[in-house]
């Protein structure tokens, strides 16, 4: 699958590039779903990184699981995690233990990439230090502005907040700190008048 082409969006929404081999002492990859393909494509460019790479992989919420392909790359550290939340403490430890020159790569859904960038920033790396490439699902990670709960893998608009149950429409406004889009109650002015949901984010 080739790199996703996005419609022009408002300036708070990040833009993404194509992973390219960085120069550094160690290479940390975090990918979900089809993001594995971006990692494989990068390794296909040369074997240089292989001896110093660590891959954390989370199968996609859409069922896409490329664990076998990543494992076949033969890197010294490969970890398959059932969710980003489950991988978070490992990621934080790797970032905390990192030496100068660590290269960080994130590939897959927007929510995954933003959470990796937030974790990296938390560890003291600048936002720009994380290379990102979007692959696969356009499903969004959305924070409910009312109850503050985050709903993962939102494909419908409007959708029902998984925490407070309000019907939310999904804005393009994006917080890098929260790694989430913003969801706002769609029937606040006319309670009960909720338009039919459409699958906006496949």
């Amino acid at each position: 699958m080739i790199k996703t082409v996005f419609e022009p969006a408002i300036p708070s929404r990040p833009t993404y590039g194509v992973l390219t081999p960085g120069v550094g002492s160690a290479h940390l990859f975090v990918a979900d779903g089809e993001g594995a393909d971006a990692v494989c494509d990068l390794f296909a460019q040369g074997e240089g990184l292989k001896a110093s790479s660590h891959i954390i992989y989370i199968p996609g919420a859409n069922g896409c699981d490329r664990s076998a392909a990543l494992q076949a790359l033969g890197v010294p550290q490969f970890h398959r995690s059932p969710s980003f939340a489950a991988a978070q403490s490992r990621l934080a430890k790797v970032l905390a233990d990192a030496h100068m020159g660590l290269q960080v790569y994130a590939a897959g859904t927007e929510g995954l990439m933003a959470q990796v960038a937030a974790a990296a920033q938390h560890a003291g790396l600048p936002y720009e230090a994380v290379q990102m490439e979007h692959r696969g699902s356009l499903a969004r990670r959305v924070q409910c502005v009312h109850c503050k709960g985050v709903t993962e893998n939102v494909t419908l608009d409007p959708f029902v907040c998984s925490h407070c149950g309000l019907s939310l429409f999904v804005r393009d406004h994006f917080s890098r700190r929260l790694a989430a889009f913003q969801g706002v109650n769609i029937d606040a002015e006319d309670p009960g008048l909720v338009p039919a949901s459409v699958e906006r984010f496949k």
Partner: protein
Amino acid sequence: MSLDFNDETFRGDFTFKNSAKAIKRFPFPFPEDSYMYSVNMEPHVPGPVGSVFEHMFDVDEHYVSEMRDRAQVLADDPLRCQSLPHMELAGWDLLELIMESKARDYPHWFSLTKDGNQWHWVNRPLQIEQKFTFLDASTLPYGPMEYITRQTQGDFTLQDQRDDDLWIEAGMVTTQADWSLDFDIGMSFKQWHAPVPLAHQMGIFDRALKFLLKLQHGAPVRRFNWTMTVDPLLDTSPENYPKWGPGKTTMTPQTIGHRQHLRVELQTLHRLPRSNAIAFPIRCYLIRFEELVTVPKWARRLHRVVRDIPDELATYKGFLRNKPLMLEYLAPFDDGQPTSPGFAPE
């Protein structure tokens, strides 16, 4: 509460109102009969006696009640006041600016005495007396920004400056026109303005950012912004939208004069001396339509502004659905006569 200050509410029974004096000094934001975005920045220098520009931070008849409303908003949702760890120094800068300004401009209400870093602050309207050590947060009941903005009308944000950009990294936001500090904190200038329609393409934010990066200490600037609010709600937050949104649907030709308010923000920008951050007070003034139309020029002009505003802007400002009702109410006050340039009543 003393005679200087109203005892009024901005929720529930909505007893807020403006005195004749407050109407006369209301900061009407339209210098001409139409409205489009502009940067419209001017030096924040002292204006005429009695005007909202007379002092650095205007303290008016709504002060005590507004501070009571803010305390309630914060009790309900402490996330309305946040400061990222590196912004504490900017908070001290802001505290100093406000305390010195108020003690100088309103000596009968506020006083500040300094003995080195040992400061003594007295706020008579709110019955607060505080001795503390400047730059030592452990000597105040809140962080410095929260402490002083619990005693100052208007929302406040603090912007750090780095990488040729401004980063919104602290704020006290309880009287906002539908934006979330909790969501926007940490964003760059263009990121937090991202949802504003049209203005990016017009280059407004490029010009504004370029201007603000060069803002000098001691040379604050100001501009107006405005929107519409049904009922005198200070807290029109996205967080509480399901609570206040339904009120927008129940106005009638009989109630619009009383319930519909023009909401004006007097925004000032101040470079802070130690942190090099920018303080951005956003002071909200409300006036109900029936108060506003007592000034013939303002009534005429507001009718023309509302009539001619593009739907995209009316939607963004949240009043498209009530625009026909507003025009029906305002039209009889527009006799077609020309209006004089500028904000003044006539």
